[in-house]
């Protein structure tokens, strides 16, 4: 046999064997990377191939491609180019769905900035009928929520997205019932900020469901750490006391204040 082919065959066989040998060494890192990267966690083969091809073809470079497109996107943003910006958001999040930066900014541009672009394009606030303006805001809010929904597929454990949807629904769409659902979802996530649970209770109160709000906060308060400034246990206790007043709960049945470490000592 020609030594060239002999060497080539040897190299291929050896490459396969070293792949076998290296697999157990690689396993801890690979498991960790998979947990970190939502794009690698898609279950169905179809999604895997669709997403995977993009990921694969661009190899380690999709991050830079996505970022480069985002630079272009920022030009569209400055020029208030609606179709350009929409395309760019879709493209960038498809190429690299990992950074929450693209999703959050994409959703905010869509729901906060784009309605103003559309209204300006149609003649400005003075000339566009109120009804039409409202419809535009409604449509853009839904489009922003749609982006955040897609983000949640890739980042199922990130409370940022349900919180953002809740915010849009509560503040901009006046849909408190809808917002409730997302604040609840966010507050049940393992790394949810403490305010998610408090806002959920506030929304319940605004809907007149004080008893429900009280039970919700009473269930959460004992799990907080009064020494952790991020838990803001004292703020939650204040809300609880307000509800106890409103609901006329007798003092002996009221929720006891959590003892601080310093106080315990």
């Amino acid at each position, binding site marked *: 046999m020609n030594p060239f082919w002999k*060497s080539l065959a040897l*190299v291929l066989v050896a490459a396969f064997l070293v792949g076998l040998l290296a697999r157990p*060494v690689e396993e801890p890192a*690979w498991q*960790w990377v998979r947990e970190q990267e939502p794009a690698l966690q898609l279950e169905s083969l179809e999604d895997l*191939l669709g997403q995977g*091809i993009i990921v694969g073809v661009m*190899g380690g470079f999709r991050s*830079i491609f996505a970022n480069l497109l985002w*630079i272009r996107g920022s030009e569209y943003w400055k020029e208030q180019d609606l179709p350009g910006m929409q395309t760019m958001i879709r493209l960038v999040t498809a190429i690299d769905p990992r950074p929450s930066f693209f999703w959050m900014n994409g959703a905010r541009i869509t729901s906060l900035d784009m309605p103003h672009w559309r209204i300006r394009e149609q003649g400005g606030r003075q000339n566009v009928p109120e009804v039409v303006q409202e419809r535009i805001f409604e449509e853009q809010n839904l489009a922003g929520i749609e982006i955040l929904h897609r983000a949640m597929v890739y980042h199922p454990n990130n409370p940022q997205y349900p919180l953002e949807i809740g915010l849009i629904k509560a503040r901009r769409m006046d849909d408190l019932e809808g917002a409730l659902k997302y604040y609840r979802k966010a507050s049940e996530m393992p790394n949810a900020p403490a305010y998610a649970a408090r806002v959920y209770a506030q929304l319940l109160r605004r809907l007149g469901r004080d008893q429900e709000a009280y039970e919700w906060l009473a269930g959460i308060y004992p799990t907080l750490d009064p020494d952790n400034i991020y838990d803001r246990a004292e703020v939650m206790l204040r809300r609880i006391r307000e509800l106890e007043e409103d609901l006329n709960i007798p003092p002996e049945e009221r929720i006891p204040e959590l003892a601080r470490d310093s106080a315990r000592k």
Partner: protein
Amino acid sequence: MNSLRIIRLIAGNTFLEAVRQKLFLFLVFIAAAFIVSSFYFRDLDFGFSELKFISDFGFGAIVFFGSILSIAGAAQLFFNEIENRTALTILAKPVRRIEFILGKFTGVWAVVLAFTAMMTLLLMAILWYREGILMGMERFARDFPEGRKVLYGDILWVGFLQWLKFGILISITMIVAGFARTNLFTVVISFFILIICHLQYLARDAWAEIAFWPARMGVAVMGFAFPNFQVFNVGEYVALYEPLPWSVIGSLVGLSAIYIIVYNLLAVVSFRSREI
């Protein structure tokens, strides 16, 4: 001992040749310009996520230009020796082919180390500077409740792990160069392999679902015959949010060591079959 000396001499000479070439300086300049250009976004976004953006962008540039440097550098420095007949001069001395290959590899890897180190330090400097500015801005103060948040030590680790990945890529290019006749062929095939290495995790996931058994075998073999480069993409989620676990660092260092050693030996095998 003498072998180590020869490898060091060949590596030193390769390094010297590389840094005197335009390609290296060009890539250093372009990559640095890219990393610095991430400042461009500062009107666009706000607070801590801007730092994430700068970090992503910086690592993207390191991976992209580092891969070009690894492949094009290894191929060019190898074929320069062949085409200028300097390989003939060196190998006519008491130098073994393994010493020659390891010397070339070490030289190119050292060049890529210089590149990766410069770019990682530049990225860290930019992050440090920008983080300082953001921390001083009242509206972002709550993003940094406990002072600086960026895990700079982990950024260094990620840079180091990228360099290890480049080491594997250089060894692959050396294997290809041993068989190939031209520089261009080597570069094209090596880039093709780089793409496969990023795709191979798909083969690993998909093979069990393929019904047609020859295709299943083929996909399974591909999953083993090419290293998984996706596993080195640790930079995009760590360094800013979550510390890089030691188990992951250990696993990647071990993995790189295995591949670099075995692939360099295979590069010697491919080079042996070559007529100088």
